[in-house]
């Protein structure tokens, strides 16, 4: 039976389930591991719900999800890995368009996904939080547990790496 506390917790956190999963899925690059991490994070968040004291639940929850993901990464000694992006993992959900546009769209999306996936976790998480999670610098600082200045320098470095990766790929492909 659910209690009032649980109901209040769910009302505050369940609306952010998609954001939580997106972050976990990008950090862990594995659907099952992302689901496990999100579940662990929600349980941990419930235990510490009183810490929130009416503040915005989204960055608080994403911070817990992020920490759960890093625990997973550490466990699997994946922090320094450079695994190839597994395209099979990634049935991207693209809007339906005409076939040629869809092909180009897919190709571009795949290249960008691959470039983000190849970033080291510290860079990947700031890009995902900023560009896909639409978090402010302050929120990213709270989520990742780093100063705002570090957020900005990591973001700037991450963008430089992405730009580089996309340019290299373009040359590899032999077309623009």
């Amino acid at each position, binding site marked *: *039976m*659910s*209690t*009032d*506390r*649980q*109901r*209040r*917790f*769910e*009302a505050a956190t*369940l*609306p952010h*389930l*998609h954001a*939580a*999963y*997106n972050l976990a*899925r*990008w950090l862990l690059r594995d*659907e099952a591991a*992302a*689901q496990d991490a*999100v*579940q662990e994070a*929600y*349980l941990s968040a*419930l*235990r510490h719900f009183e810490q929130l004291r009416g503040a915005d639940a989204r960055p608080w929850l994403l911070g817990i999800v992020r920490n759960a993901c890093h625990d997973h990464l550490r466990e699997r000694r994946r922090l320094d890995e450079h695994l190839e992006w597994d395209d099979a993992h*990634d049935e*991207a*959900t693209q809007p339906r368009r005409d076939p040629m546009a869809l092909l180009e*769209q897919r190709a*571009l*999306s795949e290249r*960008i*996904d691959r470039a*983000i996936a190849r970033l080291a976790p510290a860079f990947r998480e700031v*890009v995902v939080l*900023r*560009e*896909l999670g639409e978090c402010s610098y302050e929120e990213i600082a709270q989520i990742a547990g780093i100063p705002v200045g570090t957020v900005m320098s990591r973001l*700037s470095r991450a*963008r430089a790496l*992405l*730009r580089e990766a*996309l340019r290299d790929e*373009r040359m590899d492909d032999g077309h*623009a």
Partner: protein
Amino acid sequence: MDMHDDDDLSALVRGHASRFAAPPELAARVTAALAAESAITTAAAPARRIALPRRRWLEGVMLFMAGAAAAGVATVLLRPSAGVDEEEVAGWVADGHVRSLMADHLVDVESTDRHTVKPWFAGRLDFSPPVIDMADAGDALVGGRLDYLGRHPAAALVYRQRKHVINLFVWADAAGADAAPAALSRQGFHLVRWHEQGMQFWAVSDLNEPELRGFAERLRERIAAPAPG
């Protein structure tokens, strides 16, 4: 592919990188884990109520009814008007509202046409909820959904008033007495419940109480005098 500055690169990433939506089973998994966790941490807490005398009385009613009409026993359990537990039902309704607000979960059948929504329920429920569009009065029908309150199936009709979502939960309660709308609140949402034509109606929304009561009154007027067609 323009990416001369950070804004271009941002736009490129925002426009084209994959966003992963939580699979539907994850929400169920997480809420189940949370319920289990809550049950452990609140096991020591005293029960909120002692319902034994009322249950006894209710069992008597149910026995009588089982003889009188075999149908509807399950719905009697969902009868707040019989004093079963309005608090608990209100909690289920508010929970159902929150669940529905999670993306992609609002409606099973998306249509502003009641002639689409009504037949959709026909194969799924053993009663027929009134499906009424009130877009002309500012309450636009968005669609319908099959939901569970407690463990009992209920029709959820989804309306939108301005930017506010209203979930109207309807379930059969043939034995209940008609009751005028009454307002209550749960988890920061307002609820208005009433009973008519052998059904329980529970509307829930983040609209304020007078607005939600207004919605209920408009709906009741049209249930009483259905539009032609």
